[in-house]
């Protein structure tokens, strides 16, 4: 019974393993040139080489640092604006329309502006990442702050809660699930954008740079490895946030 459950948990691995098998069969039979599709064993060998050389860790470190700074800046700004708009209709009326208009511009659309103003600097990349984290965080925080039911507001009135205590005991906790979801989405967004930032704002170092350089030299195996690493880290970040959310929101479940 338990064994069956454990096995079922691994269902998610079936499709990737099948794809791996297909990949292996294609390369084994030489149906595609190894330039376009290097065999899995070559990719593994190159990965081992990269790890032994150690530069890949420096690249990862570079990217993760940028993501961390941009992400933190973005969610902080998003939290502040989202809460302010959520709590005050005046602020919502003032900033809401502008925010919603600016939000329609794709993040990629800001690249020329950022380059012209800040140049090809680290700051440009961090702003780019922060912008990506900023939107979902603002929206989720704003929605969250508006979620408090009228019934609970009456409880606060019955107990004569003042504004700060209303915020601390009622509004923020009820917004918390939404805020956490915002953090998770912003994190994914930030991680995706760091690759873009390293490609568009010519970077030295970073996992995106490693990928782009490999493209220039037609090293498909390294391109593959970077794709796998980017995907894996994104997956891990998302999964870790999910676990954290479940931990922090234990009060929602009834068991």
């Amino acid at each position, binding site marked *: 019974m338990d064994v069956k459950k454990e096995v079922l948990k691994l269902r998610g691995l079936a499709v990737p393993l099948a794809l791996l098998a297909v990949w292996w069969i294609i390369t084994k039979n030489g149906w595609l040139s190894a330039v376009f599709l290097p065999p899995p064993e070559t990719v593994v060998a190159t990965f081992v080489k990269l790890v032994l050389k150690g530069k890949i860790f420096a690249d990862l470190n570079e990217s993760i640092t940028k993501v961390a700074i941009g992400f933190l800046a973005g969610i902080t700004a998003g939290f502040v604006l989202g809460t302010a708009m959520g709590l005050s209709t005046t602020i919502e009326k003032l900033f809401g329309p502008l925010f919603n208009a600016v939000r329609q511009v794709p993040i990629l659309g800001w690249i020329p502006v950022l380059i012209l103003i800040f140049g090809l600097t680290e700051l440009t990349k961090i702003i780019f990442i922060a912008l990506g984290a900023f939107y979902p965080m603002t929206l989720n925080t704003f929605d969250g702050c508006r979620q408090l039911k009228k019934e609970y507001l009456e*409880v606060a*009135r*019955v*107990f*004569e809660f003042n504004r700060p*205590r209303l915020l601390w005991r009622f509004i923020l906790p009820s917004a918390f699930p939404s805020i956490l979801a915002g953090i998770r989405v912003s994190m994914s967004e930030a991680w995706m954008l760091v690759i873009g930032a390293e490609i568009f704002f010519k970077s030295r170092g970073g996992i995106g740079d490693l990928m782009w350089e490999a493209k220039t030299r037609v090293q498909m195996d390294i391109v593959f490895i970077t794709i796998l690493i980017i995907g894996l880290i994104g997956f891990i970040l998302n999964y870790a946030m999910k676990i954290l959310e479940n931990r922090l929101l234990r009060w929602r479940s009834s068991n």
Partner: protein
Amino acid sequence: MTQRGTLDIVNLKKTFNVNGNTTPVLENINLKVKPGEFVSIIGPSGCGKTTLLRLVIGLENSYEGQILLDGKRINGPGLDRGVVFQDHRLLPWLTVERNVGLGLEGKRNGKGVNKEIVQAHLKLVGLQGFEKVYPAQLSGGMAQRAAIARALVNQPELLLLDEPLGALDALTRMYMQLELEKIWQREAQVTMIMITHDVEEAVYLSDKVVIMSSRPGTIKKIIPVELPRPRDRASYDFMKLKEEILEEFHLHAEKVFSYAI
């Protein structure tokens, strides 16, 4: 000098504005509740009984006439009145202990004192051992006990109960009626006013049953219940009183003549 826990409603009138039309909701309401009394308000849906309670809570403002608590006009909510809503309205993100202590947070009692007060009230409603549990893990009856404890924690003069047992199943409700009576007896100085749909519940618990009729909401009759406690639901006097109240709603059983030959 009025005694603590006296409620005086004098010539109360309340209207609502719906699409520019003024509709009277409550009219000519006169009610006197003595300290420590248990009063039930019973009436058909839409008779304004909930509005009446919300006015006393202070969640509805602007009314004509007077609502006086200890001689002072009620104007907005206050800690001198505890409230139990039909849906328990415990904050889902706080443990039972924190929920019950909600009303004490603003007071500078010191942590130890507040904890003791919370403990005493958890004991009063029989929820010791559930301090760290979240509301989602409680049954309906337990959640309502916690809500009662939360409402009593500030030692209010008036406990206002808006169909507190309405959402519970029949057996739990009867059990909770016993509990509520015990709580009322132990908290002797607290005046309790309860809205209910349930005639038997009203007769079982109250010193006085206020019967309302609708459109606009007026007090039709006030029936004193002078049966000794604990009350026996099956006794003749109990049944007779129940019948008398049901008659007000034209819900009593038709009396059929029967012949014994």
